[in-house]
């Protein structure tokens, strides 16, 4: 069967290799010092979406992202790997959103897209690490959700079979569609960009990204696929009160620097009792599980 698949993807600062200037004096993320990347687990989700598309001829994959105009790069990265389309939610009214306002905005956009079979995103983003957005989107749309997915194994009779990564093993579940799936980082890595697709879409931009002196402006008229869809709060019939800062009950009270320091040391022999004691201690401390 042909599926309409929407990938939820976020542009995030690359927090994997942070230097000293990663935080501002006020304790917020210094976005200028960190390169903006496609959130890694959203990449894993994109790969699952593209595989699902390949296994179900006629399916389409679209990238839905919210952010400033430059977040359109996430859509381009999706197109380079085989996505068919994308939507950029961009509006000052969306800015400052916590997970609640984000999931509201995404859910509203998904309603506007309409008839979506599979909504798939990463488990969590590396800047917030909340893992809340996927489940909240499912809740708002009244859909089933499968979290910690590692592989979509099959799609039959309007149901998906999915392998989940759980503590100490894996679990296989079946779900009806439409469904929201969040993908774990242990899933297959995403495929590389495709040369022809990069050549085709390299100048694809959202209107708000464009400047008047941009070269090749004439191409935008000749080639409609070079114009990415960009939606404001009004475009998705959103309630401004539920978007951005006004829709975000989360308040940051304080940000603290935490430095891990070893305070004590223990010397263990290689004896079985010592090893057993260590294991028990680590289990009790919930360091291993």
């Amino acid at each position, binding site marked *: 069967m042909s599926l309409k698949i929407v990938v939820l993807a976020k542009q995030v600062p690359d927090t994997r290799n942070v230097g000293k200037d990663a935080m501002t004096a006020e304790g917020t993320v210094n976005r200028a010092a960190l390169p903006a990347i496609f959130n890694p687990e959203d990449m894993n989700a994109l790969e699952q979406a593209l595989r699902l598309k390949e296994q179900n001829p006629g399916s389409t994959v679209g990238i839905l992202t919210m952010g400033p105009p430059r977040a359109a790069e996430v859509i381009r990265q999706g197109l380079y790997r085989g996505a068919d389309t994308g939507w950029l939610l961009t509006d000052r009214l969306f800015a400052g959103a916590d997970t609640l306002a984000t999931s509201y905005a995404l859910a509203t956009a998904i309603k506007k897209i309409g008839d979506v079979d599979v909504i798939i995103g990463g488990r969590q983003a590396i800047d917030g690490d909340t893992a809340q957005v996927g489940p909240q989107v499912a809740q708002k749309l009244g859909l089933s959700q499968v979290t910690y997915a590692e592989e979509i194994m099959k799609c039959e009779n309007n149901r998906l079979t999915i392998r989940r990564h759980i503590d100490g093993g894996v679990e296989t579940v079946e779900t009806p569609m439409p469904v929201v799936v969040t993908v774990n980082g242990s899933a297959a890595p995403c*495929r*590389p*960009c*495709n*040369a*022809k*697709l*990069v*050549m*085709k879409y*390299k100048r694809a931009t959202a209107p708000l990204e464009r400047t008047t002196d941009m*070269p*090749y402006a004439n*191409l935008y008229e000749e*080639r409609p*696929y070079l114009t990415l869809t960009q939606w404001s709060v009004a475009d998705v019939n959103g309630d401004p009160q539920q978007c951005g800062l006004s829709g975000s009950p989360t308040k940051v009270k304080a940000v603290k620097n935490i430095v891990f320091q070893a305070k004590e040391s223990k010397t263990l022999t290689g004896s079985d009792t010592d090893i057993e004691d260590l294991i028990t201690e680590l289990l009790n401390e919930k360091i291993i599980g």
Partner: protein
Amino acid sequence: MANYYSDHPEFDFYLNHPEMKRIVELKERNFADKDTYDDAPVDFEDAIENYRRVLDITGDIAANIIEPNSEDVDLEGPHLIDGRMHYASKTYENLEATRKAGLWGISMPRRYGGLNMPITPYSMASEIVSAADAGFQNIWSLQDCIETLYEFGDEEQRKKYIPRVCAGETMSMDLTEPDAGSDLQRVMLKATYSEEDKCWYLNGVKRFITNGDSDIHLVLARSEEGTHDGRGLSMFIYDKRDGGVTVRHIEHKLGIHGSPTCELVYKNAKAELCGSTRMGLIKYVMALMNGARLGIAAQSVGVSQAAYNEGLAYAKDRKQFDTAIINFPAVYDMLARMKAKLDAGRSILYQTARYVDIYKALDDIARERKLTPEERQEQKKYTRLADAFTPLAKGMNSEYANQNAYDAIQIHGGSGFIMEYKSQRLYRDARIFSIYEGTTQLQVVAAIRYITNGTYLGIIKEMLEREVSDSMTDLKARTETLVAKYEEAVNIVKNDADQCKQDFLARRLYEMTADIIMSLLIIEDATRAPELFEKSANVFVRHAEEEVNGHYGFIKNFKTEDLEHYKA
């Protein structure tokens, strides 16, 4: 994240070479594809941007997939199971990544599914893949066999095979046999035409076939019964889907373990004739070999770069006598010479690739329409330059890759001899470069006529006419001094009646030629980009002085009777 393309500004430097304009113009035929294909460039800058993007993808895959897999691939190697070759498991990951990325059929026209890229950026991709894993570069870069099929096959064959290669099917060129290595005229694999089935059948054995269990083979076989020389040989296409060829043995090699070297048995294997009979060796295999030699030159530069990287990193990291060893003259001397050979070698590689691009694009245009007299002249000139430069680029770079891999180990000291370090793999992998696709000794044979007929001297003099920056004036003057000695040495050898002596001294003339041309090339590069090449230009010209003066003295003092001292 590491990227073997964007980490090295040299690639962009060569992509921006002034000759690229002409190459793109010819290759893109006035950008005629832009209205038919979404991925076709609209102008010159757009084309260069496309090449950069493709190299960026290649550099990413090379650094983050192929290189991390290379050690496992080297340790596992391919397997022979029931007459079929199975790659090392991670080779399949590499293949999958390059296929998903669409890095197959790179130089083929868009109408067959290719990227229509010139040989120059393709060679860059090849260098990048080789820097990650030279063995995998073999499997991947054998895609350029499709050039030969495109040039000499008929339209039906093009339509049948080119899209398959663009989708990632692999190729091999089945030339060597147990008794026909360097001397391919001895090929015995038999091709018989069946009037009944209206097709050819192949019978016999091929040996040392790189990627020998590929999907599509180009096979050199004897179609003319009773003949014994090259004129009885034709080229055939064997499609693995038709069956009839099994793998009897996979060689255990010193290096490039990921690249399977197969012995093949042909038993009534159905095949298609490519081009005309009797032209197999004389024309088609020569074309195939020239392409393959450029491929090995790129492979060699990739390994030279990897060896330099390993040596440099270790020398910076390793401390002895309370200081990093890179601070010792004996160590930075080695590193500087490695870098100079790498830079000068890369310069001649891309100069050769540009020559090949111009003549090949003109050849291709000639298939569509009659060339103008100016174009014909241009085609002739660049064909000759490509033929002359290919043996220099292949021979010198393959020797440099070996020298750099040797020095990389030397810098590592005892650790370099330990299998856990990458340098040992580079050293083993490089060893074949100066052997296959024509040994260095055969590159000398291919080059010698251009030495004696003055082709090289002509281009050297043309290069001496060009302006260089102030800081390069002295190096240019010093190189000019070498040219005078070179001319004298060439004349001494040319005017000698003794053929043995001529052959004996040929290698020295060859090296003098290459040293001078590479000096002039790196001087030009340093004129345009001093920040990248000034040091290497200084080091390389000094190296050339050492070599050329040494060879000059040797040749000048050499007498025919001295040959006796060398004979076993």
